[in-house]
């Protein structure tokens, strides 16, 4: 297998899924009506509800859903099971489920007055479903930040060529905010300056990496080279399991990332979060476009980076730790999340994108089109890890992507540095947004009962402490799979809502219902397997070794896994009852409001 064939396969998947299946469902089942007024027109307030051009919305939706999921998931899955199962799941997942989930969540919201998924659940299923969904979403967000902060800290600690670029990117982001909003500088000039300086800094990364190696050494010397935490990690020593040490430098970088997220959570959005994200966008867009085109050209221009070097298939149940389970079903389907199907997309699509849909005929190109594009991002990550099989998964990804970028003549060292930074930026952007959401969630939920939580500082710090606890005490791969389980379960719940809605309005529900059943059963099973793995592979050995912190972390993760399963079981039960109720007697559909006249 080479990269060109894989890119061709990806392009073919996108074409067939969109024209052969998605359009058919859109035309036959949803039947978009260009004359029906969308919530953006009906409730236009110039802010949340605002009719927006479909091309703009496509770019907006894609950028908002593209995070670490498609990249890290593909990397981990290829490492565990080989590239073939990962490729098959990416293709089948996005073709039959992924686009349907994104698109349907937008349709559901557009046809229900722009309401969020939880508001629709409240109306269509039961009031308690909404409350359970909130609990589910909070812990889901906690798992996302835990998994993302953990992997970013590992990269910053282990790849000394990356931090300089990230630090400069942050500084340039702050400068851009100042230039645009205080000094009233022009966007094009400010963009050229800040993005240009950031790019130069990233390319200088390999030249100044000695500084960061020394810094890490100095930080580690503070404890005399002793670890802050030692825990038994079943993924260490080639997945045989061994003691792993968390060094002070890792904690330093985790704290630095959390400080970044704290700033993103409490500072005015124009001052920090938005301009940093804006500068980061150009860096990641450049890396991904160059990477994808480079992958397609590599067999002719640079054959050395075009051949897959990892095994196609490593087994149905690869050993992981002394007594853990890692069966391909259900674990592959939660390890690769966003490139195939994702609950985050549905969540975001229903509140962010749906309220800006100008015309019902835009729902498919925006929702389905963005998801299919994100599949290409997942495919790129899979290609990168499949050809660059040196080192830890993220390092392999950066080496692979760097190889693709080097097709254009850039030295591989600089190209790899660019790939590392692009990876961190993608993850960082979503993480700081989620901390903001967690802060608001804590304030809304517990602010009445615990007044200090009304303070944005306190609620932000509490979110950060919870995330840090997961990062320091858990085993990353399980944390990732738990996040994947929660994410995919969120997608299943979104599809459940869509299914109930389709039945309630008397439409065919199979295109959403069948993927929902598969994802619901698979993710419930995956969460139980992860809870079992955590118990036998992390909790038990660490309790035997008398290490309280890893025991608390693993115990917390087991509890979260079980909580998610119970919450999903309740929602599933309520959803089934609503489904049966509407099958007996469909709800009367509200009369559509005309767009004009």
């Amino acid at each position: 297998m080479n990269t060109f064939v894989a890119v061709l396969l990806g392009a073919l998947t996108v074409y067939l899924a969109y024209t052969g299946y998605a359009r058919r469902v859109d035309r036959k089942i949803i039947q978009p009506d260009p004359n029906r007024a969308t919530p953006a027109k009906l409730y236009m307030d110039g802010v949340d509800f605002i009719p927006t051009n479909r091309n703009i919305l496509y770019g907006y939706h894609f950028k908002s859903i593209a995070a670490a999921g498609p990249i890290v998931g593909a990397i981990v899955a290829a490492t565990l099971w080989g590239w073939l199962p990962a490729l098959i799941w990416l293709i089948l997942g996005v073709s039959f489920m992924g686009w349907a989930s994104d698109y349907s969540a937008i349709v559901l919201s557009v046809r229900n007055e722009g309401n969020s998924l939880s508001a629709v659940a409240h109306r269509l299923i039961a009031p308690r479903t909404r409350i359970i969904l909130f609990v589910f979403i909070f812990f889901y967000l906690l798992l996302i930040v835990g998994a993302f902060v953990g992997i970013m800290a590992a990269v910053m600690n282990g790849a000394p060529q990356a931090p300089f670029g990230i630090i400069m990117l942050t500084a340039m982001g702050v400068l851009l905010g100042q230039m645009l909003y205080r000094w009233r500088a022009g966007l094009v000039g400010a963009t050229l300056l800040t993005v240009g300086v950031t790019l130069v800094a990233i390319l200088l990364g390999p030249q100044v990496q000695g500084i960061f190696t020394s810094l890490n050494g100095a930080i580690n010397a503070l404890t005399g080279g002793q670890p802050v935490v030692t825990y038994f990690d079943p993924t260490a020593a080639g997945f045989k399991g061994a003691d792993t040490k968390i060094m002070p430098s890792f904690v330093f970088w985790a704290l630095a990332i959390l400080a970044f997220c704290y700033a993103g959570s409490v500072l005015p959005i124009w001052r920090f979060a938005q301009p940093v994200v804006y500068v980061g966008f150009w860096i990641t867009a450049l890396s991904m476009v160059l990477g994808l085109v480079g992958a397609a050209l590599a067999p002719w221009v640079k054959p050395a980076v075009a051949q897959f070097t990892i095994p196609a298939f490593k087994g149905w149940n690869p050993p992981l730790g002394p007594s853990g389970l890692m069966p391909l079903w259900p674990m592959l389907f939660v390890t690769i999340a966003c490139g195939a199907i994702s609950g985050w997309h549905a969540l975001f699509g229903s509140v962010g994108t749906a309220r800006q849909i100008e015309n019902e005929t835009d729902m498919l190109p925006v929702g389905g089109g963005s998801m299919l594009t994100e599949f290409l991002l997942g495919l790129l990550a899979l290609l990168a890890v499949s050809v660059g099989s040196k080192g830890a998964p993220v390092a392999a990804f950066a080496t692979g992507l760097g190889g693709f970028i080097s097709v254009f003549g850039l030295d591989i060292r600089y190209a790899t540095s660019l790939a590392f930074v692009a990876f961190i930026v993608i993850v960082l952007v979503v993480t700081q947004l989620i901390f903001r959401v967690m802060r608001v969630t804590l304030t809304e939920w517990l602010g009445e009962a615990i007044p200090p939580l009304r303070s944005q500082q306190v609620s932000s710090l509490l979110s950060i402490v919870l995330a840090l606890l997961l990062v320091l005490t858990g085993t990353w791969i399980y944390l990732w799979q738990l996040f994947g389980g929660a994410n995919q379960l969120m997608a299943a719940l979104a599809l459940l809502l869509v299914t109930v809605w389709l039945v309630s309005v008397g439409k065919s529900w199979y295109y959403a219902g069948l993927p929902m059943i598969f994802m619901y059963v698979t993710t419930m099973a995956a969460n139980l397997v992860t809870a079992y793995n955590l118990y036998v592979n992390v909790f038990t050995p660490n309790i035997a070794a008398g290490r309280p912190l890893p025991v608390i972390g693993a115990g917390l993760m087991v509890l979260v896994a079980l909580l998610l399963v119970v919450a999903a079981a309740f929602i599933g039960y309520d959803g089934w009852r609503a489904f049966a109720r509407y099958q007996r007697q469909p709800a009367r559909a509200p009369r559509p409001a005309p767009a004009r006249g």
Partner: protein
Amino acid sequence: MAGEDRPTRLGKLRSTFKDIVYGMASHEMARSALRTRASMEHLFILITMGDLLGVPILPPYYSLRLLPYVTPQISSWKRRMLRERDITDVLG
């Protein structure tokens, strides 16, 4: 005719590309700026016209003097103030 069509198609393609890049790079920033402005404006209207929602803050005399200036925004303000929200709205 074919010669006239080509630039139009190219122009369309360029405009589509520009829109997509704008959507990815700047749309969120633009929305964020709009949201900040709207929040300030709506706070102002709440203080001055709060009695429209049953929250009398300013004596009606002053409210009436300000009424002509805020009239165009009242309907969107009411819609936004009275709309049911939940925590997931923060994501949008």
